[in-house]
């Protein structure tokens, strides 16, 4: 049995008197798809920031692949195999979809300090980038500027950029936000097809997606973990139903 890829150990973060992360302890298995849900203001975004390295916790540890990365900046965590897919698309607007993907692929293909060889001529990186675009269904949009892509396409590009990094954990912050029904279903199936290949921690409002993908679900309420369990346990839990899910899971 391989140890968990991500462990959050008693994380605490306060903004003034407001405790946004209240002694959160959580683990994600090596190949697990783990969902993080909770009502608005539950502290999900802060927690994502603490995992990615953009928010420093007041106390507690973030352990990634057996290594304490609490003091690491985002870039260093990414190089350890943590890929983040942003809540709102953060692709480089002036780069083509392919160039965005190459930018992501190049991290595992050597350093930034190449001054003379044109990046467009890097065959191996380009091949990997094209393969990733192909996987998310953007192969024929490779040469379009990322800023001109439709919203759903940007989400797909974000995902391709995450995949091409060959991460050990995909940190997905509301990957389905703002996408249409068919697009959501397509992306969900794509993520499902990745099970066993890469671990995922997925923060998502779309319950159909969450229950389709997740093996375990953690519910965050007021910054604290209310319950962690299988989808069935979450569905059945009365406090969760009262606090958050309401009628949604009852269908």
């Amino acid at each position, binding site marked *: 049995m391989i140890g968990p890829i991500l462990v959050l150990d008693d994380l605490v973060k306060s903004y003034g008197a407001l405790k946004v992360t209240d002694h959160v302890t959580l683990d994600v298995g090596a190949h697990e798809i783990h969902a993080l849900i909770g009502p608005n203001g539950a502290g999900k975004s802060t927690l994502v920031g603490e995992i*990615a390295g*953009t928010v420093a916790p007041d106390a507690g540890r973030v352990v990634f692949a057996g290594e304490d990365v609490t003091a690491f*900046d*985002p*870039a*260093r965590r*990414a*190089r350890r195999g943590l*890929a*983040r897919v*942003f809540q709102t698309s*953060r*692709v*480089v*607007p*002036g*780069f083509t979809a392919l*160039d965005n993907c190459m*930018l*992501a692929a*190049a*991290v*595992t293909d*050597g*350093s*930034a*300090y*190449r*001054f*003379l*060889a*044109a*990046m*467009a001529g*890097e065959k191996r990186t380009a091949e990997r980038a094209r393969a990733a675009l192909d996987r998310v269904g953007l192969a024929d949009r490779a040469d379009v500027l990322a800023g001109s892509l439709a919203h759903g396409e940007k989400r797909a590009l974000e995902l391709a*950029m995450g995949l091409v*990094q060959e991460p050990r954990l995909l940190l997905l912050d509301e990957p389905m936000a703002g996408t249409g029904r068919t697009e959501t279903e397509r992306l969900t199936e794509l993520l499902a097809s990745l099970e066993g290949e890469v671990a995922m921690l997925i923060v998502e409002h779309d319950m159909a997606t969450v229950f389709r993908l997740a093996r375990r679900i953690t519910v965050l309420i007021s910054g604290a973990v209310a319950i962690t369990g299988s989808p069935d346990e979450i569905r059945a839990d009365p406090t969760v139903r009262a606090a958050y899910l309401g009628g949604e899971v009852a269908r």
Partner: protein
Amino acid sequence: MIGDALLSRLVRILVHPATVLAGLALTIALGQILGQSFWVTLATRAAILALAALSLGFVLGQGGLVGFGHAAPFGLGAYAVLIAGELGVREILVLLPAAFAAAALFAAATGALALRTRGVYFIMITLAFAQMAYFVFAGVSALGGDDGMSIAGKATFLGAKFLRWDVNTAWLALGLLTATFLFLSRVQHARFGRVLAAARDAEERVAALGWSVYRVRLVAWILAAGLAGLAGALMAEQTGFVSPALMNWHRSGELIVMVVLGGARKLSGAIVGAVVVVLVEEFLGGVTEYWKLGLGVLILAVVLTRAVDLSALLRRTAR
């Protein structure tokens, strides 16, 4: 209309870097043939300031780093030449690397701090560091203090008194400008330039991919400063005189004006902008001491018409 298309094409050719560089070469050559030393001097000055502006244009345009202290590495390059001269070193193949290194070292030390800030704070802190350099050199009486100091003789090239002739200094300046432009054009499309440009537009994204944005920017900052140091060394060689005025914040501002006037997004913009400013200064400056008013009007026109640069403005007016 065909006329408009023709005019627009003409403007594009006129501001093309190859045209500008060829124009400088022609000016130097004709100046020498016709015995017009003033043309040579003017072209040298334009090439030197274009080199300094180009180095700033690289970090400002590609890196999004609005440094308001680029006169400091420029002046440090000049002081490196002065100090080396005082120590008896007059070999240009030693002077240029020394100027590059002096400016780069300054940028490494100050950039390491400045690059931790953003936006207006970055502008202010780079200005502050440049002012510190200015006052330090203004205070060193052994180097002439406020008044500055003449350099001990002309530089040699492999021992030969190559730079005794101004025209050789001119070719050296133009050669370095051209080489730097070609080099930075390669860098722009290489990994380093792409990561730098991506970080300008989507910093958090680029960091989340695993690129160390801070380090990449610091390297770009050091590189740009080193190149500005080369320009400063050439300026010292051309004028034979070095003073703290080279590091004055006016010059930092002037370099930004050159970059913005020519268009920051294209590398060649800085070269075009520098040549235009030097020409305006020379010819409008000959007519009236209020030449900067003319430059101001030009800048206002560029900004107010929302033309991003001079070539866009010219194309727009041509239409």
